[in-house]
C-alpha cells in the first residue's frame, strides 16, 4: 500500500513526530511504500538541523534525515509554515534576505500543493498531530 504522512507538531513537545517516525519505520518494514512525508504547522520545526538535544535523548531531526537517506523518502516542509517559523534553505534565505540557513539534510521546502498531491497519490493519508 502507498502511504502519505502528515506531521503537524514540532519535536519534543508533542509525541506526534515520534509516533510518525515509528509508524513510518513500520510501514517500510512491512514492505509498503511512503509516497511523501509532509510537515505542516509546528511540524516544520522537525526540519531544523540546529536542534541539539541532550546526548542521552533521541535526536528527532537527525533520525528523520537518516530514515530519508536510507529509504529515499520525500520529506517536504510547507514553505508558508516554514517562513513563519524561521525554517530556511538557501533559496529561501536568498529570497527573503536572511543571513543563515537551517534546513536539515533530507528535507525540502515546497508548497501546500505537495500535501494535496500526497493525498491524491496515496492510498492512505495518515495525520499525526494534536
Amino acid at each position, binding site marked *: 500500500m502507498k502511504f502519505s504522512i502528515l506531521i503537524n507538531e514540532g519535536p519534543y513537545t508533542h509525541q506526534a513526530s515520534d509516533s510518525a517516525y515509528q509508524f513510518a519505520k513500520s510501514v517500510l518494514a512491512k514492505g509498503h511504500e511512503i509516497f511523501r512525508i509532509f510537515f505542516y504547522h509546528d511540524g516544520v520545526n522537525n526540519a531544523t538541523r540546529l536542534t541539539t538535544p541532550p546526548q542521552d535523548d533521541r535526536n528527532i531531526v537527525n533520525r528523520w534525515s537518516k530514515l530519508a537517506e536510507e529509504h529515499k523518502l520525500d520529506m517536504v516542509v510547507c514553505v508558508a509554515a516554514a517562513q513563519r517559523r524561521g525554517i530556511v534553505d538557501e533559496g529561501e534565505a536568498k529570497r527573503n534576505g536572511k543571513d543563515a540557513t537551517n534546513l536539515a539534510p533530507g528535507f525540502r521546502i515546497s508548497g501546500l500543493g505537495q500535501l494535496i498531491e500526497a493525498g*491524491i497519490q496515496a492510498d492512505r493519508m495518515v495525520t499525526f498531530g494534536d
Partner: protein
Amino acid sequence: MTIKKFMMVNRKAPYGTVYALESLEVVLIAAAFEQDVSLAFLDDGVYQLKRGHQTKGIEMKGFEKTYGALEDYDVSKLYVDQESMAARGLTADDLCVPVEVMSRAELGKLMEEQDVVLSF
C-alpha cells in the same frame, strides 16, 4: 487529474492556535487543485464560524472574511456538529456563513465517505 474527496476537520478556536488559519490555506490549495473539498467544524472549531471576529485588540490578522469567500472557490460544503454548537450556546444564526448543521452520527457517516480526512 484524479479528484478525491478531501475533508478538513476543524476542532480548534480561531486565534488561540494557528490551526484554523493554516487549515484555511490547505482548503484554498485543495480547491485550486479542483478537489472535492468539504469542511467540518466540531468542538471549539465551531467558534471559527462565529460572526463578528474582532482581532484588533489581540493584534492578529482576522480571517472571518475568508470563510465568506470560500464559495468563490467552489467550496460550499460546510458541516457543523450540532452537539458542539448546542454546548456553546450557538445556533446557525450566529454564524458568518450558511452551513449544514448535523448530528455526530451524520457527520461520522460523511467522514466515512471521504478519501482524505485532514484534522486540524
